[in-house]
């Protein structure tokens, strides 16, 4: 059984998966923030390497990418960062990356180094399931699990294809669009989770636009194995760029609050 499948089974509740851009706003603060997230109740970490042209991301994560790149984050440094994190506490770590970064590093070399650093799974934001062969065999050879996206506009046939190639979890995109905070929960998410449950037994983690404890709770109630929260958390960084202590406090409080909410179910 896969890493995630094991974890989700033993947890017996929906996992909380915060997302951070590695090196945002700078390497040291970023490390402190991820540590805070771990200490506050994160079950899994989803970490992104900053890229110059993140087409799947909305304004909040775009700005985080720019901050991290300006502060000197690179793919090689990101791997060292991941090693530090997994030395602190070995939670499962899913990586979110744009293809050109790993293509330049060398796909196999990168994935092998990521595994050595303590990584668990990889998701390439700009590779669709049609291009699974560009990542899945290399991930498998490195001992990593694969994660692919399912979107609300996908056919059943295509969802089955995703399920077939996924050894980690299905990254379930809650809406049609990019990452970013939203006020309401997308009305597409519950029908999509229902559809997925009929089509596959793979773990389902829901992300994109999940912003409040209520959203997280609703997704958990709909039967998701994990809930991924990105932009909302990154926003705490953006809002407190001159006050690292406040940044950490807000991230910690928020994660505790969401964690409590989904644990209560």
């Amino acid at each position, binding site marked *: 059984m896969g890493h995630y499948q094991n974890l989700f089974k033993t947890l017996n509740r929906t996992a909380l998966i915060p997302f951070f851009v590695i090196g945002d706003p700078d390497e040291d603060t970023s490390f402190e923030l991820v540590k805070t997230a771990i200490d506050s109740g994160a079950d899994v970490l989803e970490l992104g390497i900053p*890229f*110059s*042209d*993140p*087409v*799947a*991301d*909305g*304004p909040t994560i*775009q700005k985080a990418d*720019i901050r991290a*790149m300006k502060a000197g984050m*690179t*793919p*090689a440094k990101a791997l060292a960062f991941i090693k530090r994190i997994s030395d602190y506490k070995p939670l499962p770590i899913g990586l979110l990356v744009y*293809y*050109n*970064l*790993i*293509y*330049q*590093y060398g796909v196999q070399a990168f994935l092998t180094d990521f595994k050595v650093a303590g990584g668990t799974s990889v998701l390439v*934001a*700009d*590779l*669709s*399931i*049609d*291009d699974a062969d560009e990542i899945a065999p290399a991930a498998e050879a490195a001992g990593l699990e694969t994660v*692919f*996206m*399912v*979107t609300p*506009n*996908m056919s059943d046939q*295509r969802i089955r294809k995703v399920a077939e190639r996924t050894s980690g979890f299905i990254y379930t*995109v809650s*809406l*049609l*669009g*990019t990452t970013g905070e939203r006020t309401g929960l997308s009305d597409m998410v519950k029908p999509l989770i229902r559809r997925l449950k009929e089509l596959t037994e793979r773990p389902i983690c829901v992300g994109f636009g999940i912003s409040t404890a209520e959203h997280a709770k609703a997704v958990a109630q709909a039967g998701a194995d994990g809930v991924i929260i990105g932009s909302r958390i990154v926003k705490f960084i953006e809002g407190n760029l001159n006050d690292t202590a406040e940044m950490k406090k807000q991230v910690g409080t928020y994660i505790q609050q969401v964690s409590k909410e989904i644990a209560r179910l």
Partner: protein
Amino acid sequence: MKHKGRFGNFGGFYVPEVLIPALEDIETGFDKYRNDRRFVEELDDLYRNYAGRPTPLYHARRFSEHVGFEVYIKREDLLHGGAHKVNNALGQGLLAKYMGKKKLIAETGAGQHGLATSMIGALFGMETKIFMGSVDVARQNVNVHKMKLCGAEVISVSGGTCTLKDAINDALRYWTSHIDDTFYLFGTAGGPHPFPTIVRHFQTPIGTEARQQCLDQIGRLPDKVVACVGGGSNAIGIFSGFIDDADVELIGVEGGGKGTETHEHCATLVKGSVGVLHGAQTYVLQDENGQIHETECISAGLDYPGVGPEHAYLKDSGRAVYTAVTDEQVLDVFELFTRSEGILPALESSHALAYLVKQKGKLPKDAIVVVNLSGRGDKDVSIVEQHRPML
């Protein structure tokens, strides 16, 4: 997706999963209508009577005297809107109409593609949004006004370098949440499959006409065909007519900016390396980590760190050759060509002309060179004035 969209190893569709249904939809529509009789006839009528095709092939005698060989100009600058962009905008716009789409979006650099799309939006009564980098909005402001006059909304994009690359990023992002009713009318022969194939298809009249005009007017094929390359649509359009004529040299000219030895240029094929940007595997300007470089060029339409995948393939296969000229060489030829022919070339197209000046003395007197004059330079007058003030 039905086809892989590959040109050798280049191309493909490296996009987030959410965009696949939209690209598939366009691929299906294109396959269905490209040879549909009604579609072809309607497009042909629009090419003739709306855009002004066929465009002339003009023997530029005074400029020829200057460079020392025979120069023929394919006059895409005479098209409605002032550039070759209307060929593609009409083709894709009509496709959108046949597919029942109600809204158009497009990216633009120089504003020529934005303008062409806005015209077609007006023509077909479709709501149109144009994404344009804020730097380009400022430097191509006449085109912005024209787009608005056509009824389009111009969205100024301030991410990244605030130029074409960022306009494409934001147009793609917008599309992910509006794929049901919105057609992304991509402006150049780049981006994810099926765009490189579709844009090439709708730009082929340039090459088909030019080849026949050479035979009719000169009695033989040219020795060289020269075009500027931004994303590569005007170049692939004219190259397509001659690609099977092995003796015709194909030359693409990129923006050398302040010089290809500096970082301030956009000569992707000359100086770039293979990577993935905007959905395609192709040459890109990037650092050793794969972060995309900022580019710099006097001509907004060429100011882009990627290039259409078919050009990457033509470069590696050796069928076409790519080179670059600097901003200064471009300004020189803009003045020279305007004075000798009374035709204002777009700064983009001036790159192709500047290459000819560099060939002065290197070609036999009876050599025949065809240049694609992709657009007219009216939009660039104030930029030229800034760099070369008339006293």
